[in-house]
């Protein structure tokens, strides 16, 4: 049967001749396999125009270069020299995020009580982020960008809710992972930043990391980008599960301290877990000196103190979640209800 279409036809696939089956088919197949088997010892498949040879990569010793477009999780940028964050708390990313994992509060000028174009606290639930990149696409100030660091595996679920101090990266870091993309938006981003800095005062808008970030921040980042074929992934000072030598003990200690801190917080005590998390993180892997990182931790700036409760159960009554946040959640819920009924 043949059916003619516009620009093409339907044709019946050839099922082959019923042959004397003495294993010819299998021998033909084995021939293919054996040739691949031998080339696996002699050849490495480097370019996509070949089909034989070893094509596996001995991760983590060997790493493939990542394309500039690669996106994993969002990070926030701050200017290297002034330490000012590019984010103005315009809520665009929070609104577009499909799983709604971005949360923020806008900074308020303490003298006038008016909101300023800077962010007080910024929080992304990495564990629910789906790496879609819409937040980076929508941001009018180029303040939120997609990171290349993918080695975030951890046993600390609560630690996957990442706050501003851990989201902040210097612009120079982003420049090393995505040079052409940054070059495209650079001028506009800086121009807008200059305008916004004028409306900020005091320490508002300063990145908690900026104080200690060296001039040429993320020194580890600069190295691999310089023409090395297989760059080592940039490991910045992420105080998440840094692999340590005494993993089990370290982990236990950290988990205990987190739990203690959560309990303390539920009772209204000051948050203490951040420093402890850092203190136990393995420093071998961390670009900056541990003391410097610890100093760079945010002074609690009136954001949303997180606890296991507000991660799991929506808005529990006993948290000190910012009031506007509670209001907003309420209105979203009632809006959803209204839509349904």
């Amino acid at each position, binding site marked *: 049967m043949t059916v003619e279409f516009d620009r093409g036809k*339907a044709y*019946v*696939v050839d099922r082959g001749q019923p*042959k004397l089956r003495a294993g010819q088919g299998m021998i033909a197949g084995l021939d*293919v396999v054996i040739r691949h088997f031998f080339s696996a010892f002699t050849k490495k498949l480097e370019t996509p125009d070949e089909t034989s040879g070893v094509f596996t990569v001995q991760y983590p010793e060997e790493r493939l270069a990542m394309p500039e477009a690669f996106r994993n999780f969002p990070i926030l940028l701050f200017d290297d020299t002034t330490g000012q964050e590019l984010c103005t708390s315009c809520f665009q990313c929070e609104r577009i995020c499909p799983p709604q994992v971005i949360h923020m509060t806008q900074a308020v000028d303490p003298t006038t009580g008016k909101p300023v174009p800077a962010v007080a606290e910024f929080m992304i639930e990495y564990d629910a982020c789906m790496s*879609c990149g819409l937040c980076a696409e929508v941001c009018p100030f180029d303040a939120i960008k997609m990171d290349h660091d993918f080695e975030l595996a951890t046993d600390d679920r609560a630690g996957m809710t990442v706050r501003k101090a851990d989201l902040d990266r210097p612009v120079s870091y982003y420049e090393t992972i995505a040079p052409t993309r940054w070059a495209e938006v650079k001028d506009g981003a800086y121009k807008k930043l200059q305008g916004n800095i004028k409306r900020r005062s005091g320490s508002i808008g300063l990145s908690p990391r900026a104080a200690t970030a060296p001039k040429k921040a993320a020194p580890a980042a600069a190295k691999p980008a310089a023409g090395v074929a297989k760059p080592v992934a940039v490991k910045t000072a992420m105080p998440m599960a840094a692999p340590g030598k005494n993993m089990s003990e370290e982990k236990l200690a950290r988990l205990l301290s987190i739990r203690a801190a959560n309990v303390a917080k539920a009772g209204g005590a000051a948050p203490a877990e951040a420093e402890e998390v850092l203190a136990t993180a393995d420093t071998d892997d961390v670009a900056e000196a541990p003391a410097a990182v610890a100093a760079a931790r945010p002074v609690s700036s009136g954001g949303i103190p997180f606890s296991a409760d507000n991660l799991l159960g929506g808005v529990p009554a006993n948290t000190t979640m910012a009031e506007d946040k509670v209001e907003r959640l309420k209105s979203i819920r009632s809006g959803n209800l209204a839509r349904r009924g």
Partner: protein
Amino acid sequence: MLKTQELQINIGPQHPSTHGVFRLVVTVDGETIVDLKPVFGYLHRNHEQLAEVSTYIQMMPFTDRLDYFNSMANNFGLAIAVEKLAGIEVPQRANYIRVLMAELTRILNHAAAVAFMINDMGAWQTPLAFGMREREKILDLFEMASGARMMCNYFRFGGIVRDLPPDFMPLLNDLMKALPTFFDETERLLRENEILLLRSEGVGILPKEVAASYSVTGPVLRASGVPYDVRKAEPYSVYNELDFDVPIGSVGDIYDRFLVRIEEMRQSYRIVQQVIERLPDTTGGHINPAMASIGKQKALKPPVGDVYGRVETPKGELGFYIVSDGSARPYRYKVRAPSFINLTPIGDMCRGHKVADVVVILGSIDIVLGEVDR
């Protein structure tokens, strides 16, 4: 004749043959299947309801998660439907890049689908490694263009998110050199292989009429001998400007499905060749200027009405039925998932065969549970 007692067993719901969380309630008489009932829903993620509280563009990354092997094709489906609804034009260049991505998706899906099917037959891992190798190369290209290997989120209403990066084309040309060798090798490896023939010839036959009455689509339907392909039946994008044939089967058994998939890879290869040829001369940029900013995408409010947009994904006809009430969120959003519909006649295909055939038949349908359950 010896009478034995019928026995009901469950295959799954953990992981029948690595295809996902899915359960088959099988009634067996000895080794023979008397009845088989697929039970799905274990991977339900509320996809359709989510759409009703999301804006149109917010749904784009969620469609990646339907059939996670073919996120580009899923993106295509949603984009086509919404563009039809809102009357958005797509520039020529964007269309060609879309088709390029969709056909690369088909190659990678079939490379993996054939390989997984062989894997289910017991050719443990070797053919799979070959299939995965080619798939990986295509995924590298996707990563370069869209930023992610599998969750591409590459399409936007009116075009695509970003034009191809400069190092994309050289790599694609390299890949095009390797693909014919891969198709031939896969065929040589398995075609007329005695074991494969024993396991697949005459097994899991789905007659034309039954396939049509179950609304089966895609390679499964074509293997049953129905030359139905959305790209031909209702050409979308620029498929009416491209030459390609539709391979069909004659018997409708597993072997036909296998051969049809190999031929489809060759046809997709032809399409990609034509696209590469024409891409430098295309005009119009990667996105319709009226929709170029993400703000426009976000604020998209299609007029009141409903639409059914469909594309031929590697698994079959993927349709999006969207009802708009004029607001920024769909009033109703329904996905016609090819995996789901192709899976429903599995009982008919398996009856009378042996237990060991069930897994192979399931493999030959080529399902992704993410799409079955949504």
